[in-house]
């Protein structure tokens, strides 16, 4: 059994457990073996002094739900070895929140263009600074702060 740091629940009674960031992968593996066979989403929250990574689990056989959270500075272990669907969700979390996932097969930006500066869902992201994207000759996206160099 892996140590749970603390526990709470959402307004409609879904259990939320906190684990330490080193225990994320073993804890989720244990939960998967207990019957939580679906990973609904991976997300991250910026609490200004630390980041939090959140996993929503669902057991499709007995319909129970579990939310697993871990405080992190900027890096956690990837869970793509457990669920194939984690691949895109982790890429999105890296793209928008800026949490790195160790041992991820292809940790690149998914929604924004490669080369984008900053992670938009961080609370200190400069909203007034616009970035422009253009398609270069080699078929990859280029990002620039000059409005003449993109759309």
């Amino acid at each position, binding site marked *: 059994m892996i140590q749970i740091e603390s526990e709470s629940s*959402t307004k409609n009674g879904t259990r939320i457990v906190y684990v330490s960031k080193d225990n994320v992968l073993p804890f989720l593996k244990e939960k998967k073996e207990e019957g939580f066979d679906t990973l609904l989403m991976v997300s991250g*929250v910026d609490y200004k002094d630390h980041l939090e990574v959140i996993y929503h689990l669902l057991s499709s056989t007995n319909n129970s739900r579990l939310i697993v959270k871990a405080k992190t500075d900027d890096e956690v272990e990837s869970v793509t070895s457990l669920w194939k669907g984690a691949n895109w*969700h982790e890429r999105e979390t890296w793209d928008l929140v800026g949490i790195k996932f160790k041992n991820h097969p292809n940790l690149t930006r998914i929604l924004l263009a490669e080369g984008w500066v900053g992670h938009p869902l961080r609370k200190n992201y400069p909203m007034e600074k616009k970035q422009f994207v253009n398609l270069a000759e080699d078929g990859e996206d280029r990002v620039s702060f000059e409005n003449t160099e993109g759309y």
Partner: protein
Amino acid sequence: MEDKIIEVNFGPQHPSTHGVLRIKVKLDGEIIVEAQPIIGYLHRNAEKLAEMGAYPKGMVYIDRLDYVAALNMELGHVLSIENLMDVQVPERALWIRILMVELNRIASHLIWLGTHGLDMGMLTPFFYCFRERERILRIFDEITGSRLLYNYFAIGGVYSDVTPKSIEMIKEWTEDFVDKLEEIQAILGKSYIYVSRTRGVGKLSPEDVLSYGVTGPMQRASGIKRDLRKDSPYLFYEKINFEIPTRTEGDVYARFLVRVEEMRQSARIVKQVLEKLPQGDFYNKKYSKPMLVRLKATGESYVPTESPKGEFGIYLIGDGSSIPYRVRIRSPSFANLSSIPTMLKGYKIADLTAAVSSADPVFGEVDR
């Protein structure tokens, strides 16, 4: 001739990508060796936008996620907020919500059926489907005042009541919709070309479905009987009789059959709602419109709902102010689309459009 792998770009500007999907396909002859979907062309970060204003203001962005089923998106948002703030909703409003959501589910599936037929080279079902959808949109126009993006569900109820004229319109529609649906299904399902192009194509095993987090009709077509309207009932779904259609083949044809059957079940639900619709208020008078933006909340809430594409829900974190601290959208199309590499591998390039359109991706929701 030597063996050579060719890389082909499919999209982002292609009529059968249902939006702006780009797939990098590696081909060995006409067999797909590897398919890599590239998304993000319609990204506008609805999560950040919803975190910038008061709780009800997020609704206009949530509307624009899955723009062909905007009411289903609104439902997920409004249920999550009401759960977070412990808002009581009058019974009549809840029944109206079921009515609207099921009508919108049919409208969404009709668009899918029409465009899917178009992808398979059949133009006729497209016109038939849009004719039927037009009647639903006229009903929405009568009730909400708009045809595509409604902003109709409010915290504590709905914005306007169902009028007697619209009830007449819905009754008239329920009378012959199922017959019309039979007609549309026959055009595709009895066509030798359609069936031979879809049967055994784009297969997903139940293990892959769970591993990718695929939900909704795609999951039910692979033999996993799950529907949140039955499994964790919200609104009044436990008081309504309907069945969950499932198939075990997991191919494109099975998804077609599941979605068509779902439309029949939704029409059944609409009929039952019309019988059960109680009299009373259509919104909670405690939550008058000007004070909605001043509502404050703390805690966390996630209410899963069954949208036409699968499990949709909004995970809200409140920090005690009137602006949500974090809004996270669980979008079903995003997870469904991530299974494309498995769905396409080993099939021929001609099967690509069939498999991609069977996932029913709507890019407002995939890219958010």
